């Protein structure tokens, strides 16, 4: 379907980003033509297509120019000319690792988790989901972004509804309607954005870069538009009062669905805030920051407390996501380079560690056919390697130094402390609560003497170990040596922060644009000299005319 786009992509250069979307899409279509009686062939095909996508993403990571702060590998073509809609894709430091994470997570989910029935449609939906998620992260056109943002609901709806657990129909419908409701507001806001920007630009376009750089909304207009977008993202993240779909969807989804949902789909919301909230509407973002910070902190504390109370292990992990995503929102609306870099990094970290947690919980369920913490116990005795793997992932989720979760949370907290001190102080308590609910859960599930049912708990199998290994490697690598990631994230984040500062009065306060990696103590107002000069780079991004 989308393969047609490949043919008229740019002159000469391989249209890498288009291919990243097209390959899984073609795979999904190809799967429809496989025989139902040969599921292993379907699985091989799906694995092949997702592995090719993963390889391309890794190649993109290698080729990514870490010194540039603009969009790279840009692919821009007109699509619906009369409405000013283009096929505009690009990747920068903010989306880079999210795409790599997505492209790597899917082959692991496909190889690691077998559905209980009907492999063929299951794999086709997964591949379609992958295309949609990658498309959302790559889109630099409002219309295109909305298309992908919406289309991911369909495969996810069918995955939860078709392969989920007992309450799957309820959870799938709730998930669909909640997110669709958010998108309803976004669609109107998005169209209004393009229509109003037409007055500034002189032509109708849905191009994100054109609108963000060229438009000049009145404050009140921008705020309305921003909230239209924000509702959609807040549902997706999910931010505190809009979170109720998440525990149901996560718990009822099949394991691969939960892994993908927690791993990448929630990031569509936080990514959306960065790309379409802060970048498009800097004034409104800054204006409403107290609201978001407050909701983020409530989410952190609330998610942690509710997680502590859960009897279902999968639900516990689901609520822990609410808390973790709260940190990411906190960092986003702190408007410091450090905090936003931390947020971007934490999006990836959360994807890795929560993805792995759901994977492990899925394995427990496959073995014991229960997720109730009370029915588990003493697993460490019978499956020490499994327990060790769980331990590492759990510690990463808690944010123990030396593992990836710490780096992200630390950056968010020190970055936010400069600009949003009291919120950060409260949020820090959430770190402690995370240790409480996860360690307590670990203690109840793994420690003690196994009873009769748990005594036969099988040890980690070779295949499961191989699927888990990349997660563990990522957890330790990022925890010990995050610099390569931050090097690529920070230029783009700096540019975004400078863009926000340029369009608001926020740079009057030195603490908002603190340079990367250097913690400025709160007492000195003189530590802001080095962050000038970002503003000049703002226009200096790659951009082609379609």
């Amino acid at each position, binding site marked *: *379907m989308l393969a047609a786009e490949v043919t008229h992509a740019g002159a000469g250069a391989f249209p890498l980003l288009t291919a990243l979307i097209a390959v899984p899409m073609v795979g999904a279509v190809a799967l429809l033509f496989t025989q139902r009686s040969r599921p292993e062939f379907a699985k091989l095909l799906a694995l092949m297509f997702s592995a090719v996508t993963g390889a391309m993403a890794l190649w993109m990571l290698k080729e990514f120019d870490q010194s540039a702060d603009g969009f790279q590998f840009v692919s821009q073509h007109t699509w*619906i000319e009369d409405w000013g809609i283009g096929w505009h894709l690009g990747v920068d430091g903010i989306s880079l690792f999210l795409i790599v994470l997505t492209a790597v997570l899917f082959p692991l989910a496909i190889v690691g988790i077998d559905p209980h029935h009907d492999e063929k449609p299951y794999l086709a939906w997964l591949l379609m989901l992958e295309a949609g998620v990658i498309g959302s992260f790559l889109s630099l056109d409002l219309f295109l972004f909305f298309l992908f943002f919406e289309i991911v609901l369909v495969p996810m709806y069918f995955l939860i509804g078709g392969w989920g657990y007992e309450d799957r129909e309820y959870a799938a419908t709730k998930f669909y309607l909640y997110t669709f409701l958010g998108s309803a507001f976004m669609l*109107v806001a998005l169209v*209004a954005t393009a*229509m109003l920007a037409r007055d500034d630009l002189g032509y109708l376009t849905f191009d994100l870069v054109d609108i963000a750089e060229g438009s000049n909304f009145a404050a009140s207009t921008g705020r309305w538009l921003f909230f239209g977008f924000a509702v959609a993202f807040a549902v997706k993240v999910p931010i505190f009062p809009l979170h109720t779909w998440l525990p149901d969807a996560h718990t009822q989804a099949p394991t691969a669905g939960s892994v993908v949902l927690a791993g990448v789909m929630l990031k569509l919301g936080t990514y959306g805030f960065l790309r379409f909230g802060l970048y498009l509407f800097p004034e409104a973002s800054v204006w409403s920051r107290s609201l978001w910070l407050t909701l983020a902190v409530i989410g952190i504390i609330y998610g942690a407390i509710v997680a502590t109370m859960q009897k279902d292990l999968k639900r516990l992990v689901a609520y822990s996501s609410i808390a973790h995503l709260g940190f990411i929102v906190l960092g986003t609306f702190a408007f410091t380079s450090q905090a936003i870099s931390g947020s971007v990094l934490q999006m990836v970290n959360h994807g890795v560690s929560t993805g792995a947690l759901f994977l492990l919980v899925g394995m427990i369920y496959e073995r014991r056919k229960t997720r109730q913490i009370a029915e588990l116990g003493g697993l460490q005795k019978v499956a020490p390697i499994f327990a060790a793997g769980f331990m590492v992932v759990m510690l990463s989720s808690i944010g123990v130094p030396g593992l990836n979760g710490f780096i992200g949370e630390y950056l968010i907290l020190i970055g936010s402390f400069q600009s949003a001190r009291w919120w950060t102080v409260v949020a820090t308590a959430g770190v402690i609560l995370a240790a409480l609910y996860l360690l307590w859960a670990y203690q109840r599930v793994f420690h003690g003497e196994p009873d009769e049912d748990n005594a036969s708990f099988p040890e980690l199998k070779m295949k499961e170990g191989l699927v888990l290994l990349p997660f563990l490697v990522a957890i330790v690598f990022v925890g010990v040596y995050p610099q390569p990631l931050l090097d690529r994230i920070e230029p783009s984040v700096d540019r975004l922060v400078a863009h926000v500062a340029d369009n608001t009065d926020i740079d009057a306060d030195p603490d908002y644009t603190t340079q990367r990696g250097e913690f400025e103590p709160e007492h000195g107002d003189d530590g802001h000299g080095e962050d000038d000069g970002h503003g000049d780079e703002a226009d200096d991004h790659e951009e082609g005319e379609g």
Partner: protein
Amino acid sequence: MNVLAQADTLPISEPEIWWFALSPLLTLVGGALLLMVVGALTPQWPRGLYAFVSAMIGGAAGVLAIFNWDDISDNGPATLVGGALAFDTFAMWSTIVISGAVVLVSMLADEYIRDTPNDGPEIYALLLVAAAGGIVMASANDLIVLFLGLETLSLAFYVLAASNRRSDASAESGLKYFLLGGFASAFFLYGIALVYGATGSTNIGEMVTSLANRGDSGNDVLALAGIALLLVGLGFKIAAAPFHVWTPDVYQGAPTPITAFMASAGKAAAFGALIRVLISGLPSFRDDWQPIIWVLAVASLVVGSFLAVVQRNVKRMLAYSSVSHAGFILVGVEAAAHTAGEADGGMGISSVQLYLLLYSVIVIGSFGVVALVAREADADLSVFDGLAKRKPLLAGAFTIFLLAQAGVPFTTGFIAKFGVIQAGVDAESYGLAIIAMVTAVIAAFVYLRIMVAMWQKDVEDDAPAITVPVSAAIAIGFAAVFTLVAGLYPSLLIDWSDAITLVR
């Protein structure tokens, strides 16, 4: 029709007639007569030939309309038969939509009515007559002509709705439609009379001139009362709430392919008429009727989507969803109202026509599937249980139509909704756009319910077998492919729809 003005200019001059411009209309009328006469004089035709001829006639009308479209793009719009009919891209677009609906519905109806007492040329002849009436409605440049078209369409529909002689529901549906429709026609006719009283003409061009020159002294009561009555009549035809109450009963009782035709061609014709009357004919009163359109739009959106949720019968669900779609189309009409009568008409009219085209294909496909799955039985939701296991392709096609109706991206349904929302936002009707999108979420629940039944419920053991005849398979397959392909690459259609203008 301006009888008074022409009375003193004897002898009556015969209007010049451009036969080729009228050719789509003449093809349909001639085809209907041919089917009736030849069909009555000859013994039963071979299997499927009636439907084939009917589809051919519809197709020919559509092709002729495309030629005419070219002619209009080259030479500009005009009026025909002494100002009775408009010859513009708007009329031709409606002609193409209605003719296309004839083709698809003929293919669906073929197997459906075969081996029933209804198998014969009559159903197809009535389809063609209804199509001709619909085209006259959408291209009328005179209120009397519009009324003639409306009655032609309606009378054919009344008979078609009641055409299943073995079904009480069908007879009930026909009778209900006839009684209520007769009421609506009366309202409409009275409205015409009052507007004639206010303007001295029923010709749309002359009405505009007369209203523009009326000055401040004139008394608008006659015209406003007329507009109100016209809106009642048209609101009934487009099935906008609160004039929608006939829709679920008639849609449910009528033979399903006929329901498909009502929901596609019937809507296209009625919206064509609505735009002719309001946007072309009464732009000087736009401040007065625009709020009514706003209310009708909101009422249709809310009533349609909420009442669809509580239904158990799929045909009723789709009927209520068609009410909510009417609300969406009214969003486009409301947008067009902001600039009615101005040279730059905005995006409203194009978006309405694009919606009508895309929705027609979707809704014919949807009812086509319902016709196959719930042939004789009541189209209760449980009939669809486990359809994906019994007929995966059919379930797949239905899923595409349902997703499109919900407005999911990469389907034409999204393009259609996006078009009217864009037009609404462009006209700064933000509130209406938001209401429309929020009710779309509620409506989405309906489509999800049907999908859950198809994909996640188990088949009942005693479920009757489903046979998929070739002609219906082609029609449904075409509709599904069109829904996806035009959803992925809509720029051509959008390009054409942007060229839609009304003759002035």
